[in-house]
C-alpha cells in the first residue's frame, strides 16, 4: 500500500514538473528580465519608513514599466530588508551584485548602511539611487554609480540652524544626537552653523539609549535652553522628546528628517505637537503628489510615509535611464545604465531633478515643517514653515 502511495506521489511530481517547465519557459520567452532592487529596513523600529521606500518603488515599477514591457522585457521589483544594520546591508549587497538581472538599487534609508553597501555596488558599477540618504559622504566619495534625489545633511543641518536663529529667534540650544553616521553628522552641521549665527550651544551629547532618557533630560531642564535639537531617527527621538516634555522641559523642539514619519506622533502623542523638523522630503501638496498619494492609498490601504515619493521619483529616473540604453532590444549593462542616470533630466512631484558630477541633485529643496496634530493619519497635514532650494556644495578638495 505504502509503496503504491510513494509511486503515486512521484508520478504526480513528474507530471507537475512537465506541466510547469514549459510555463516558466514561456514567461522568459521575451528579451529577458530587468530587476530593480530596494534595500531598506522592512523589520524593526524603523520599518515604517523602510516599507515606504519599498512600496513607493513598487508603485513606480508597476505604473511606469509599460515601455519596457512592450519591448518584451519583464520588469520586476526585488525588495531586500537591510534591518537598518550595516552588516545586513552589505550581506544583501553581495547577493544583489550576484544577480545579473538587477540593474539598479533604490535605497537605503540609513546613511550608515548605504555607505558600506554602496562600496559593494561600486565594485561592479551597479547604480544606486538613494531616495533618503542625506549624509555628505554618500556622494562626496565621487563614485560614478552612486546618486541621490534628496538633499544633504551639510545643508539640512544649517537650514535648521538658520531657521532656529532667524525665524524662531532662539538664543540657546541643547544638542543631542544618536551617535550614528547620520544623526551625529547632521547634528554637527547644525551646531557649527548655529554657533556662526550667534546661538549659544549649551551642550553636545550623544546617546544610544532607547527608553530611559531621565538622566539626560535632568541637565537639559536645569539649563533651560530655548531650543532642544535631536539629531537622529523617530524611534529614539519620539520617546526622548516626549519624556523631556513630560519632565517639564519648556524649550522648542527641532530635529532633522529622521523625525519625518507619522510614527513620531504615534509614539510621542500630543507632547510632540508643535515640534519642528527639517526635511528633504517634499510635502504632499502639489497636484502630482496628490495623485501619488491617492494611488498609493488605493493600492496599499495607507498613506505614503515620507521618502515613498522620493523612491517613486528615483525609480522613475532609473527606468528612464534603462529605456534610453536598451539598444537593439538587449538589456543594457550596469555601467551604461549608471552613465545614463547622470544624463536624465526629470521633473516630477519633488521638482526638477538633474544630477551633478557627484550624483547630487543640482538643486535640492529643503523644508522646515511643524507637527500640527497628534493623529498619525494627519501627518501629511503638517504645516510648512519654510522652504528653500539650495544647490549642493561643491566637493571640498
Amino acid at each position: 500500500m505504502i509503496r503504491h502511495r510513494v509511486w503515486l506521489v512521484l508520478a504526480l511530481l513528474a507530471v507537475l514538473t512537465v506541466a510547469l517547465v514549459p510555463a516558466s519557459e514561456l514567461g522568459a520567452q521575451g528579451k529577458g528580465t530587468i530587476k530593480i532592487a530596494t534595500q531598506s529596513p522592512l523589520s524593526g523600529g524603523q520599518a515604517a519608513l523602510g516599507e515606504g521606500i519599498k512600496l513607493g518603488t513598487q508603485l513606480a515599477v508597476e505604473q511606469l514599466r509599460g515601455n519596457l514591457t512592450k519591448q518584451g522585457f519583464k520588469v520586476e521589483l526585488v525588495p531586500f530588508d537591510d534591518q537598518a544594520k550595516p552588516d545586513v546591508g552589505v550581506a544583501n549587497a553581495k547577493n544583489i551584485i550576484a544577480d545579473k538581472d538587477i540593474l539598479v538599487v533604490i535605497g537605503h534609508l540609513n546613511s550608515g548602511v548605504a555607505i558600506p553597501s554602496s562600496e559593494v555596488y561600486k565594485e561592479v558599477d551597479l547604480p544606486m539611487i538613494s531616495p533618503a540618504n542625506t549624509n555628505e559622504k554618500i556622494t562626496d566619495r565621487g563614485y560614478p554609480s552612486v546618486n541621490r534625489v534628496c538633499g544633504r545633511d551639510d545643508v539640512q543641518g544649517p537650514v535648521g540652524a538658520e531657521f532656529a536663529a532667524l525665524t524662531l529667534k532662539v538664543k540657546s540650544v541643547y544638542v543631542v544626537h544618536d551617535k550614528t553616521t547620520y544623526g551625529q553628522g547632521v547634528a554637527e552641521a547644525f551646531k557649527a552653523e548655529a554657533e556662526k549665527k550667534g546661538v549659544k550651544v549649551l551642550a553636545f551629547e550623544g546617546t544610544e539609549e532607547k527608553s530611559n532618557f531621565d538622566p539626560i533630560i535632568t541637565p537639559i531642564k536645569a539649563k533651560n535652553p530655548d531650543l532642544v535639537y535631536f539629531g537622529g531617527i523617530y524611534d529614539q527621538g519620539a520617546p526622548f522628546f516626549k519624556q523631556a516634555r513630560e519632565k517639564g522641559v519648556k524649550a522648542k523642539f527641532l530635529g532633522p528628517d529622521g523625525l519625518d514619519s507619522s510614527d513620531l506622533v504615534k509614539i510621542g502623542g500630543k507632547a510632540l505637537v508643535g515640534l519642528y523638523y527639517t526635511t528633504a522630503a517634499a510635502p504632499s501638496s502639489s497636484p502630482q503628489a496628490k495623485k501619488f498619494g491617492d494611488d498609493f492609498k488605493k493600492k496599499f490601504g495607507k498613506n505614503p510615509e515620507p521618502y515613498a515619493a522620493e523612491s517613486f521619483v528615483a525609480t522613475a529616473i532609473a527606468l528612464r535611464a534603462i529605456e534610453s540604453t536598451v539598444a537593439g532590444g538587449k538589456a543594457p549593462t550596469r555601467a551604461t545604465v549608471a552613465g545614463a542616470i547622470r544624463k536624465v533630466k526629470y521633473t516630477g512631484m519633488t521638482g526638477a531633478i538633474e544630477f551633478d558630477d557627484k550624483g547630487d541633485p543640482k538643486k535640492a529643496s529643503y523644508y522646515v515643517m511643524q507637527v500640527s496634530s497628534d493623529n498619525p493619519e494627519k501627518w501629511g497635514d503638517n504645516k510648512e514653515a519654510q522652504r528653500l532650494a539650495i544647490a549642493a556644495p561643491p566637493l571640498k578638495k
Partner: protein
Amino acid sequence: MSMDFELLVRIFPEVLLDGIILGFMYALIALGYTMVYGVLEFINFAHSEIFIAGAFIGVEILLGLQGRGLLEGFPWPLVLLLALMAGMAASGLLAVTIERVAYRPLRAAPRLIPLISAIGVSFFLQDFIRLFESLWRNAFNLVYPSMDALNHRLELTATIDVSVKSLVVIVSALLMLWALHLIVNRTKVGTAIRAVAEDQAAASLMGIDVNRIISLTFLIGGAMGGAAGVLFGVQYGLINPYSGFIPGLKAFTAAVLGGIGNIPGAMVGGLVLGLLEAFAASYLSLLTGGAFGAEYKDIFAFSVLILILIFRPKGLLGEVVRERA
C-alpha cells in the same frame, strides 16, 4: 574648567530621584536572576524576556481597555493594579513553563548545557513576541497609553517636582520587596526555598518537594520581573520585543554586584547601579566641561563595578548571608 557648581547642586535631588527609580527597576528584575541562582546556581538568561513579556501583557491590557473606551472611566490605581497583576501572572507562569520545558530535563547535565538552553529560550521569546505583535497589531514599537493622572507632577519644593508615575514605581517596588522579604523569611514556603537553596538532597530527605519549590522560585522571580516590566512601560512609555535585553543585562550585573544568590544584595546592587548610571549620565559632561558626555555612563558604571568586584569578589553583600536565597 567650566564647572558649574551651582547647577550641580541644583539638579542633585532630581538626579538622585532618577537614579532611585532606575535602581528599583533593576532591583526588581535582579531578583529573578538572584533567586534562581540561589536555588539552582544557574543563570537564567531568558529572564530579560520574562521581564519584557510582562511589559507586553501590561500594554495589551491598557490598550484593550483604551480600545473599549474604559481607560478614562476607571480610577487609575485600579487600572494600574489590573495591568500589574496580569503582567505578574503572565511572567510568573512563563518562567515556570520555561523551567519545566527547557531547564528541568537538563538539570543533571553539565552546567554549560542549561545555560545554552537559556540563551536559546531568550532568542526564541524575543522573536516570538515580535512575530505575535506584528500579526496582532502590525507594530514593532508599542506605546503605553499615557494617563494624565500619572503624568501629573507634584511639587515637592520650588525646584524639585516628581511625577505621580515615578512615585508609583517607587512605592510598588518597595511593597513588592517587602512582601518578598516576608514570604522568604516568615512563611513555611520561604523556609522550604531557603532549605532547597542550602542543600537540595537534605531538603528532599526532610520531605520537601524540591521540584515544586524550584517551580515556585521561578514563579516568584518571574512575577517580580513581570511587575518590573509593567512599571518599566508605565515609566518610560515605549517598548519593543528587544527592549528587555539591556535592562536584563544591567539587572544581572546588579545581582552580581550585590552578591548573586542574595535577595537584599539584589536590591542594594540594583540601587547602586541605578544611581551610578544616573549620576554618570547627568554629571559627566558637566564635570569634564563636555569632554566626556552622557554616552560614557555605562563605561563609568561598569568601571566602578569592576573595582568593587576586585575588592569584594562575592559582591557587596555576598559573604554575609550567602546561599540564603
